């Protein structure tokens, strides 16, 4: 005991979490007896797969969740962190994965939100702008106090989020997967800022599952797997492979070996596609490309450059406004989703919790959504539960879904297993075309690997055409046969051959720094 007390007195340690156990009200054990120690002025990597409990642990620290067991020592004293306001008062701040900014307010207004300066009873805007400028200068993170959040890029917004927390005078800064939404260039910029903050004595918790980045920027790491700590180390002492092993529990090789594509006839053909949203913004401005059978075409781009509109139009979720989309030569104009699906199109929507799966229904009911009306699953409008259960069991086995059985509710599954259920449905109907939007976003390594392999399998076994949207550039390069880059509603580049293509090469086109000539881009049209 004395030994431990001594360590607590050690000025180096700013925060200790001891034996933290958190069980959610659905019975999921997110954290199991976790110990974490943060030192002053370090960047501490909290590493683990999606669902390993990183975010939960930080929510406990930030007062969002209360743990069932365990205690928190802050500067040697035990504290009960009851809510985020309390955490901020103590000097603990968190930047969430999804930004908590109000789009229609200015940077300065967002900065002071929750602690607004007032003159009498009126909001003191001048003071807010002053504070913003002051903080920005102090931490060398330049922002324009008057700019509206909705006009800013993702990297810029993140800077505002970080400043907002710094303004509250925090000592510990928690960043939840800060690079998930950034391009490689923006990530580099963020790292410069973080190292700067570290030098000023801030403690930073960097949550991530991107090991390259962790290795690059962190001083020490804590690795979580399935809610437990599987390793703690100084970064110099471990290689990326070691971290990966601690994280996944086995050696992993995320490279999937695949043969070169043997493309055949054109399946999906998009010509001069345009789309204007309800605010009058042109999200798609003359997009033309082809995807051939036996080919995986990747689509890269910073979020909001027209990818969502493109996939939603092809799937029939939003109506075709201008241009032409054909599948096997047949137009999809004026066709509903059911008609498009009847043309053997499979779809994975980027938002799986809303469009991909139905939480309160069973795996069975989720898997059958696109085929319940066909024999043998139903006859004359009456369901054949036996056939449905049989098929579901088969798919659960084939896609290695971890569950209590075909009648388990989808809400009881982990994110990776939910996506496996979605994949099981969409991949098992021998599609001519698969439109897959962010199929592995936010899921664990095992499920990611399985889904990537199944996509390649579709290309090889079923000769399907695949249009793959992803924010994970390594995934795009690894899985796709060729890639188009979207920028500002247009195709900015087409890489027919991916030899020598790296994330930073794509990044330049994604940010609009570079653009290929029209002739080069037009090569994506085959007939």
């Amino acid at each position, binding site marked *: 005991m004395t030994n431990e007390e001594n360590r607590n007195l050690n000025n180096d340690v700013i925060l200790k979490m001891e034996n933290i156990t958190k069980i959610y009200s659905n019975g999921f054990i997110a954290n*199991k007896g976790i110990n974490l120690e943060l030192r002053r002025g370090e960047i501490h990597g909290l590493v683990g797969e999606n669902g390993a409990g990183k975010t939960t642990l930080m929510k406990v620290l930030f007062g969002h969740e209360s743990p069932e067991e365990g205690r928190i020592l802050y500067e040697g004293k035990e504290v009960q962190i009851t809510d985020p306001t309390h955490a901020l008062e103590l000097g603990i701040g968190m930047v969430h994965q999804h930004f908590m900014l109000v789009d229609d307010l200015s940077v300065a207004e967002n900065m002071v939100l929750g602690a607004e300066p007032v003159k009498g009873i009126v909001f003191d805007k001048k003071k807010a702008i002053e504070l913003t400028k002051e903080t920005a200068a102090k931490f060398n993170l330049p922002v324009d106090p008057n700019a509206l959040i909705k006009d800013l890029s993702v990297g810029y917004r993140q800077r505002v989020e970080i400043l907002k927390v710094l303004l509250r005078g925090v000592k510990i800064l928690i960043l939840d997967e800060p690079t998930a939404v950034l391009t490689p260039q923006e990530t580099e910029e963020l790292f410069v800022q973080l190292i700067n903050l570290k030098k000023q004595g801030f403690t930073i918790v960097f949550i991530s599952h991107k090991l390259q980045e962790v290795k690059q920027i962190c001083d020490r790491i804590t690795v979580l797997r399935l809610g437990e700590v599987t390793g703690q180390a100084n970064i110099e002492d471990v290689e990326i492979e070691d971290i990966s092993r601690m994280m996944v529990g086995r050696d992993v090789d995320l490279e999937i070996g695949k043969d070169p594509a043997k493309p055949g006839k054109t399946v999906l053909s998009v010509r001069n596609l345009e789309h204007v949203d309800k605010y009058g913004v042109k999200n798609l401005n003359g997009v033309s490309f082809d995807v051939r059978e036996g080919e995986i075409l990747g689509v890269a781009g910073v979020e909001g450059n027209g990818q969502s509109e493109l996939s939603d139009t092809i799937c029939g979720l939003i109506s075709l406004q201008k241009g032409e989309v054909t599948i096997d030569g047949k137009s999809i104009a004026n066709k509903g989703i059911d008609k498009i699906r009847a043309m053997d199109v499979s779809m994975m929507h980027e938002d799986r919790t809303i469009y991909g799966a139905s939480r309160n229904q069973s795996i069975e009911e989720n898997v059958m959504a696109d085929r319940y009306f066909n024999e043998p699953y139903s006859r004359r409008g009456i369901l054949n539960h036996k056939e449905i259960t049989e098929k579901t069991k088969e798919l659960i086995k084939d896609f290695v879904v971890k569950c209590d059985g075909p009648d388990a509710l989808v809400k009881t599954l982990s994110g990776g297993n939910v996506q496996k259920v979605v994949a099981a449905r969409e991949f098992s109907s021998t599609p001519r075309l698969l439109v897959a939007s962010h199929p592995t976003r936010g899921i664990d390594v095992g499920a990611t690997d399985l889904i990537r392999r199944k996509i390649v399998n579709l290309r090889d076994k079923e000769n399907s055409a695949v249009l793959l949207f992803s924010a994970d550039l390594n995934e795009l390069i690894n899985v796709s046969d060729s890639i188009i880059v979207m920028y500002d509603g247009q195709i900015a580049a087409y890489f027919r051959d991916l030899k020598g293509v790296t994330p930073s090469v794509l990044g330049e086109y994604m940010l609009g720094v570079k653009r290929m000539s029209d002739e080069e881009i037009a090569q994506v049209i085959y007939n």
Partner: protein
Amino acid sequence: MKKKEKYISTTQIEKRFSLIRTALAIVISLLFCFLLIFISSKQPFQDIVTFMIAPLTSPSRFCLMLLKMSPLLFTSVAVCILFSANTANLAVETAFYAAALSSSVISVIEGFAPAPLHFIAAAIAGCLGSIIVLLIPAVLELKFNANIVVSSLMLNYIINLLGNYLICGPLKEPGFSKEATKLIQESAKLPIIANVSGQKLHLGIIIGIICCVVGWFIIYKTNFGYEARTVGQNPNFAKFSGINVGKVIVIGSLIAAIFCGIGATSEINGYYRRMEWEGSIGYGWDGIMIAILANNNPLFCIPGAAFLAYIRTSADILNMTSNIPIEIANVVQQVVIIMIAAKGLLSKPEKKAIIANAKKQAELKEKELAENNG
């Protein structure tokens, strides 16, 4: 082989607690009711006993209960169909009334058709009435995005006033002392299956139970039921899977309307001599309450309707034997609704049970792992 330890999933715990919650809601509302009786009665103990067992004390009282139960079966199964597709179409209340009106038009025609056919024709006419009423809010929502709750509530007023006009005007038998239609023809009447000292139990209760079974089959065993439940659980998912959400809502309204139509015709042609409702009488609202109690499962509507009919009969008898007014039944009904709506009821012990279970599961798994390794 793994040792078979007792395995409970979180879903099972949740189901168990949902059952306990319903039971608790009923118990609490009854206790509240006892309290009221205690305060207001001159002979509280006797009255509480009467309230608890009255319908079982004589065959005719039991018959009365079954008679009260019959219409509730139809409206509750109709609500189940609508609610499982998450269509909050509250016009069920007046759809039942409209069906009673339109069926009576046929029922009063002398020599319209022989015995079973006359009733069937009347029921079809009844269905037409309820179909029109239930489809209006559904179509308004689909075509013009008009909130179905608001439009169906408003429609209830319109149909009530329209019905009142019809009963007092065009449908009224001239010269008859009451606002009511002509006599319902014998050929259109439902057969009486039991006549217990003046309480004539008609076939309606049997038809109602059949409707509940059919409703259950539709919801859980047919393609349409699957579509409806999927639309009800997650309309975006349903749409993205290729289910035509609009079609499901329209068909759901049609099926619900048919149950209302059959139910209203059975009620009028089984129990009454003339159609004499000057306005809707709340069977739709009762149906909503029962469907909520039954968690949208038509089979559970049978005990649900029985419960409501039971306390109503009790209240009736209490009204005759003591100074307790008949409204006591409404008190029970409202308290049950409040308790059922209180989703937070028992949430703490529920969470505790789930967490304890999760811990146990984790320990079991560890033990298993250790055994496998050892």
